[in-house]
């Protein structure tokens, strides 16, 4: 199946490629995958990865190797919003465990799962560089810090209510 990217993404990809010497196109792989993943519902299918390999003139396996190495790329479908809660030491001592269990019960899913309406995926991650504002979570490009249960209610409502009355 041939994957097509929007003109906007193609422009962005070309801008990125131009940041590296001509014969070093492969260097654009990580930023290009970010652009592409955003467009393809937040995850990367084999077809998408092959297309990226094609654009950068590298072997498909070079893309698979990279995609599976880094935690920010997904190779399986995810919810519209991926909630990533930090659980490393500094966040843990400030109560990240409670945040995770609160989210689990609120969304009715376990860590690693996606709500049945495909709106939220819950993940735990390691330190995101917000330890002083713990507990914290990230959704997309946004950091949410100094979390409380009320704040979480608010976030979930803000994001989810456009799609479902449940939130």
């Amino acid at each position, binding site marked *: 199946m041939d994957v097509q990217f929007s003109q906007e993404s193609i422009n962005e990809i070309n801008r990125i490629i131009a940041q590296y010497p001509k014969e070093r196109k492969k260097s654009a*792989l*990580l*930023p290009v995958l970010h652009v592409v993943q955003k467009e393809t519902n937040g995850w990367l299918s084999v077809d998408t990865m092959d297309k990226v390999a094609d654009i950068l003139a590298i072997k498909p396996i070079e893309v698979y190797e990279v995609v599976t190495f880094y935690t920010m790329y997904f190779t399986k479908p995810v919810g519209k919003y991926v909630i990533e809660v930090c659980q*490393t030491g500094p966040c843990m001592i400030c109560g990240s465990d409670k945040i995770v269990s609160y989210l689990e019960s609120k969304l009715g899913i376990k860590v690693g799962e996606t709500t049945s309406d495909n709106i939220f995926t819950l993940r735990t991650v390691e330190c995101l560089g917000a*330890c002083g504002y713990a507990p914290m979570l990230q959704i997309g*490009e946004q950091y949410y810090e100094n979390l409380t249960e009320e704040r979480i209610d608010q976030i979930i409502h803000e994001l989810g209510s456009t799609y479902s009355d449940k939130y």
Partner: protein
Amino acid sequence: MGVQLLLEHLNKPEINTIDGYIKQGGYRTLDKVLGKMTPDEVTEEVKTAGLRGRGGAGFPTGMKWSFLDKSTDKPRYLLCNADESEPGTFKDRLLMEKIPHLLIEGMIVSSYALGCRTSYIYIRGEYMFILRILEKAIKEAYAKGFLGENIKGSGYSLDLYVHPGAGAYICGEETALIESLEGKRGNPRIKPPFPAVSGLWGCPTIVNNVESIAAVVPILNMGGSEYAKIGIGRSTGTKLISASGNINKPGVYEIELGLPVEEFIYSDEYCGGIKGGLDIKACVPGGSSVPILPKSLLFKESNGNPRLMSYESLSEGGFETGSMLGSGGFIVYDEKQCIVKNTWTFARFYHHESCGQCSPCREGTIWLDKVLYNIEHGLGKESDIDLLWDIQHGIEGNTICPLGDAAAWPVAAAIRHFRHEFEYHVKYPHRVKDDDHVYQPEMNYTTA
């Protein structure tokens, strides 16, 4: 507040824009340096300043620059390490988020000193929102003619780009960073060759932390010898400390190196003491990789002198009684925190972040994680404590890159200083289980 060199203008209006930044005297070094000083003179200035790498290892920056192989006609690269992923560290983020132009100014003059035509800032993928801030700032700098061809008529040209990672702590290791920038898995390279000889695309390359590069700006403004007067002994200048954990005022502080640890924790200017009026139990002073220090060793060196926030003082006594300044990730634990659980989360972190190339780290980190999980969850055995010791010993020093050491040290230090807590966990597994591994006051670890 003491001397503020990096964060001085943090709260000035519009400091995140180029005009706001220039209003506070920003980009002055361009006039002073480009075409006026030779690149070697700039390097000399940084050497005189005694600046030491702020990314963790504390290697003298000027000396590192002088290792750059200038004998080839290959291009040279300066890479700014903005991967900031060491648990407990979040200082580079503040700098880039709030005062992006300070880093850009630092990149320009540092690249000039190294003779680079193109430089990159490698930023962790999770900081995508900061990448946008940096790219916007870089655009502003191009528009003003501070980047691009013939900067301010000096004849010097530089292109600057930001490159995002995608979630891998190991890409903070400089050769893994280079691999990642080349579009590969973040597998650290086997050294030698060192990047200064063969780095990015086989060209001579220098990798420096965000804060190190930013510090070059005040150094050039005030002169290396003035900068060297700040701080204490070989720990010159100021350092950003990321303070987190059970303190009243977590956040990023710029301190003059040499500040007493006790003052840093208890003064209202900084951490403001322990939350809830509790007592302090321990502190990890330099990011998760460095040894944890119990209260008894935290405020005093072995000779009785007060322990200071400096490279030398924090490492005084070696690993027996000391730790390291590291990246300045200062994590404070109150008396109720469970050291075993904390150590487990760190072990889990290193297990998660090991690149998997070399056997001691790949297999050792998962083993540490599993054994610590068991102890923490009331499934441990008494022999597990010695086993942990053996595992960390088998990793330390035997790996390709220092991630192995970083995984081993926190475990070793926790056992060294808090063995009684581990013993409590294995002796009273049901209590650990029932308490949902939260510390209870009646758990008197020392007499257990």
